[in-house]
């Protein structure tokens, strides 16, 4: 267990020693700050408190999803293209440990960025509105955290797919393109599948992965049941990871 923590640490070392992560982070922070300034200065938006701004800020969560997809797409495949995979896998370590540490490091990255957005939107909101006393604070904060959690579960489903594609095909481009297309055209895919056969759409996991519908009162797809959605999500989560593990474990390294 302790070893896995060390492995996650070195994976983080490799993620954050590359400049792109800091560009992503700066971009996220600046975008949120710009949002705050716009919201503050446009009267018609009628935003009155820090909490309203925080809940609006969740709308840029897809940006975090995109960044996480980028990280997930090459955390395995870049080791192959750099040739460093040979050095990683000739350590006295079983292969699954290397893969699991990479997967967890990638999720930690997404978690870190989510917390950054949460914290940043709170801070920007606090500075620009200074109004913290509307509603019952605790309830608002806990609802906000729930919303972030649900978004994070949605994100996990996409990055797990990206991670799997990249591990299987060793192509970060393919992994990014497929995941991004899926994410952006999800609603059209649901419509098409529904047109062919309503059952097809029912079992399409990305019609279920965003669980916020169950909590914010908007309409859920197919009038769904939470238990069914969760089962589908867990099933795909396990399936994607099993495929990654199996392929990674069995692969003959010939780079």
């Amino acid at each position: 267990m302790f070893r896995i923590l060390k492995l996650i640490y070195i994976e983080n070392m490799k993620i954050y020693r590359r400049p792109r992560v800091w560009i992503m982070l700066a971009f996220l922070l600046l975008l949120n700050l710009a949002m705050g300034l716009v919201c503050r200065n446009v009267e018609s938006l009628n935003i009155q408190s820090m909490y309203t701004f925080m809940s609006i800020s969740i709308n840029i969560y897809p940006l975090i999803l995109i960044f996480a997809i980028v990280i997930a797409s090459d955390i395995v495949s870049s080791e192959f293209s750099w040739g460093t995979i040979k050095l990683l896998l000739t350590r006295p370590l079983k292969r699954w440990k290397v893969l699991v540490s990479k997967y967890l490091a990638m999720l930690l990255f997404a978690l870190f960025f989510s917390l950054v957005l949460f914290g940043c939107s709170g801070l920007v909101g606090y500075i620009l509105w200074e109004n913290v006393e509307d509603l019952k604070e605790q309830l608002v904060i806990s609802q906000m955290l729930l919303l972030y959690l649900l978004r994070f579960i949605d994100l996990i489903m996409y990055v797990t797919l990206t991670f799997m594609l990249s591990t299987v095909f060793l192509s970060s481009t393919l992994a990014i393109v497929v995941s991004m297309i899926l994410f952006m055209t999800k609603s059209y895919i649901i419509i098409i599948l529904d047109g062919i056969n309503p059952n097809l759409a029912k079992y399409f996991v990305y019609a279920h992965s965003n669980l916020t519908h169950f909590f914010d009162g908007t309409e859920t797809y197919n009038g769904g049941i939470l238990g069914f959605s969760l089962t589908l999500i867990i099933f795909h989560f396990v399936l994607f990871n099993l495929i990654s593990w199996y392929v990674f474990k069995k692969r003959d390294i010939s780079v």
Partner: protein
Amino acid sequence: MSETPILQIQNLSKQIGGKTIIDNLTLDVPRGEVFGFLGPNGAGKTTTIRMLVGLMSITQGKIIVNGINLSTHFEKAMRHIGTIVENPEMYKFMTGYQNLKHFSLMMGGIKKQRIHEVVELVGLQNRIHDKVKRYSLGMRQRLGVAQALLHKPALLILDEPTNGLDPAGIRELRDYLRSLAKNEGITIMVSSHLLTEMELMCDRVAIIHHGKLVDIKLLKDIHKGEGQEFGNRLLFEVDQPAKSAEIIAVYLPEVRIEPTETGVSLSLQREQAAEINLRLVQAGIKVYRIKEITTSLEDSFLEMTRGEQIV
């Protein structure tokens, strides 16, 4: 324990897509030697090495490292092996030191002091905090050796270590590996298709061809050559080879003489060589030079793999 070979390969086979790449290979690598693994391109050297270090699965057979079966106890067995497979690729966006720290954390139980030790051992002290992308190939090679030595392995496995190095770099690496084997007591296994390199570097070579072991030779044996009991094999370069052969045949009827285009070659003792030279000169034959013919590893190698189709 110390008498058992550091590495035992038993009936090792590898099939990829129904094609046999390695066919029933069995060999032992004795402790403390520089062991060469020689074969033409495509003979299966790299495949074998990749199986030895866990990069490729084993179709059949066993690999035993320091008495530990690699397939069943991978982590334990790999603790004894340090390796560079082909080029030593490192993380270019990190410094040499960060790279070493990275690998030391992966293995666990390696202290900071050990990192400094290996850095000094490979002589990279002055550049260790530079980014690897600024390193020359020779420096990367040294960093590669440093990461392979971090956990004090008993066996160092290097695949084509001289690839891409210039002659000075090759020489440096060769001297370096020899001194590692001698001073640190590490067994070194090197694969290569460069015969002359292997001759200079190794105590023993295994020659493989088409995935099969052709021969294992102590390099002393190869240098002895076939005519050792008669002394050295000499070439007399003369203007009249046929007449020379006759003259020599009269003097030494029991020795096999091979006339060539420019002279005659035969195995002789020291004194006999002088005597023959005298007789040839007295018979009015011009002797341009007398040259010793050494049977090199290259000759043995070509002889062993001659006439076979290289795929």
